[in-house]
């Protein structure tokens, strides 16, 4: 009886695993972020037609907005993007600047912005927009610990995204994660821009992205740099910087140190 029970359990677990993890072949093409180790962890990149959440650490809305704008740019490619936000978010965190978007290498012509009066309106608009398969992605920006954005709401968004193939990106500012049906969840904080000297200007958008939830794989934490010209993320690039001259009498140690500094 015990053996039969184990067998049943095993077969049940197998079927649940099959239900939960759709086969790789059936998954639509994943979108590579460009950051090699993060892409490896995500098995090739971000899954389209799913819900992804980005939380701003503390009130650092700038970094999180940059990260989600990058994701949206990667996912929607040449297709239109709908950005749904609350009125309050405009006042609290500033409005999305089109010139700023263009500076990141994204196209403001493809952006339609919806300003909803409240969270309910924003949620409903986002669900509506997700049903329109002509879009590349829908960004929903919610400020604060919105109770309306619970498991049920995120399930609705996920289903809508799956049905139409449009990716849903949710940007949460001043909120802490609660259970949801998101495919991935990121916590993003600002990272220091690369060190520069007089010749190399600093200020490349760099964020520290922590993957705290990944439905189909492990989690991790990386420093990512957005390459404005190539329109993708990358490992933080090493910029030329003054390095102390290698002492001639300690070749091995000195080489190792120099390499370490360059990679940092």
């Amino acid at each position, binding site marked *: 009886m015990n053996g039969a029970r184990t067998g049943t359990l095993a077969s049940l677990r197998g079927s649940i695993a099959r239900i939960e993890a759709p086969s790789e072949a059936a998954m639509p093409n994943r979108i590579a972020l460009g950051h090699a180790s993060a892409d490896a962890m995500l098995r090739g990149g971000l899954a389209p037609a799913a819900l992804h959440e980005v939380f701003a650490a503390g009130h650092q809305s700038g970094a999180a907005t940059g990260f989600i704008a990058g994701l949206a740019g990667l996912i929607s490619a040449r297709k239109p993007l709908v950005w749904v936000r609350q009125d309050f978010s405009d006042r609290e*965190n*500033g409005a*999305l600047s089109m010139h700023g978007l*263009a500076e*990141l290498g994204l196209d*403001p*012509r493809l952006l339609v912005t*919806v300003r909803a009066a409240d969270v309910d309106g924003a949620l409903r608009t986002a669900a509506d927009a997700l049903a329109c398969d002509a879009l590349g992605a829908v960004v929903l920006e919610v400020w604060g610990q919105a109770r309306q954005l619970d498991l049920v709401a995120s399930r609705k968004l996920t289903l809508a995204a799956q049905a139409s193939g449009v990716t849903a990106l949710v940007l949460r500012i001043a909120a802490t994660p609660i259970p949801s049906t998101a495919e991935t969840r990121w916590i993003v*904080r600002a990272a220091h821009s690369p060190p520069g000297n007089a010749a190399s200007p600093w200020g490349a958008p760099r964020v520290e992205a922590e993957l705290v939830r990944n439905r189909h794989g492990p989690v991790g934490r990386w420093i990512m740099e957005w390459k404005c010209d190539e329109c993708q993320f990358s490992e933080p690039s090493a910029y030329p910087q003054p390095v102390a001259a290698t002492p001639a009498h300690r070749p091995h140690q000195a080489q190792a140190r120099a390499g370490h500094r360059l990679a940092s």
Partner: protein
Amino acid sequence: MAGLPLLLAGEGWGGGLSTNNVLRKERAPTRIASGDAIRPPPQAGEAKKELPSVVVAKDHNAILLHAVDEAAVRTGLSIGLPLANARAICPELTVYDADPAADLKTLNDIADWCDRFTPLVALDAPYGLFLDITGCAHLFGGERALLQIVTHALSRRGFAVSAAIAGTSIAARTLTRHVSGKIVADGAEAQAVGPLPVSALGADSAVTTGLRRAGLKTIGDVAARAPHEISARFGSAFTTLLGHALGQGDAPISPRKPLPDYIVEKRFPEPIATDTVIALTLSSLAKMLVAAMDKQGKGARQLEASFFRTDGAVRAIMVETGRPVTRPEMIDRLFRERLDALSDPLDPGFGFDLIRLAAGRTEIVVQQQRDLDATVHDNDEISALIDRIAARIGGKRVVVHLPLESHIPERSALALPAQHHLAAASAAAWPERVVGEPPLRPLRLFERPEPIKVPFASVPDGPPHQFTWRRALHAVVRVEGPERIAMEWWKQDGAALTRDYFRVEDAEGQRFWIFRDGLYENELRDEAGAPVAANWYVHGLFA
């Protein structure tokens, strides 16, 4: 009462109508007493003591009677009499203050109700309405029947109505000032208007008095004189008015709403009140409307559904679309979104007896091959989505962005309703970014720059070492700048100061766009000429 166009009860109005084979107008001058205008007429069983009541208004520092009721007329009061005199005549007078704003609102409500007869309803303030009933009368069983419907319905609500139908609006109005219910055939205006007193024309009181003093008592008397004599004495405007009253030429009326391109409507013998029936009616109306538009290859850009309640209230709901709508299910869906999102839901009260759907603005639809060109299909889908969202939360909340020719950061982009500017936005030319440069403009821009506290700067013109924004202290570790942005002096009144922008990064890695308002020692001086401390602001956040 002699010189006055009409004497009316406390709440009342008179109306008129006019006829012509080409143009028919109806007019209903009202005189509405204070406050609540719609009041049921006194019931037969009610106390029939009939204390006279009047409405008064202040005119040139004298309180004069503005309107009087029948009981007051019987005691000898008339409009224009000072209140003190009236009190002397009749001490038990009930007095109300005139409320012109409420009168006008009531007149507008009545005009809304009159929309059910014709789309062309014009106000003739303070108490008249013109209805252009050309081609409408047969729908209500002819002019006589229409006149009866209007007068009956309005008198039942407690208004005193005087109505007439004539070929020109002025002739109709003149008739209503004398007698109600007159229908004048085309060309017979002069004959009908002739015997009426000159005051019925509604000209200035100076003109009326002047005519009477000249011995011209009736309109016929005036018309018998040569026009140049009248013009010389009373001005050409009066001659024109007289001509219109006599049916020679017509003054155009100015309807309250533009005439919609297409109208379909459904009348119900039994009022409807349930949501399902209303929804079904709207869908069938949408089908009828699309069928009508389809014959001429048109699509609707603006739709209006009007719900006429049995008690006279009218609710109109409008939706706009970015592209001409040619499918009934789309119209249906837009209205469903709109009705769902109404902050004060549609209140059927005792039911609607008429629902009307009108296409206010239409455009010729260019038929496109749908299946082969994916972008056409996509654009259609997106504009349909924008229409749906706009129908629910409002067209101004769904925006696209266009670049503006200005280097002032907050003025360099314009957000415009996506419904109307989608095509323009997708063809807009944004400035190219400089390859290899990090972002020079922040991703998030505050509409109003937020003041920050800067304790000191190392040099007066230099960047700060630290600043306090929203009660948090940020230590500046790196700075890039300044980027000097001068205000547009050719547009300004000269008040705005030059800004020095710095890109700064704090110890946590957050990047800000901050600026100092004003050039140190140049612009920042008090009246005495001594340098003052600059104000600092944070204007944006970089990614």
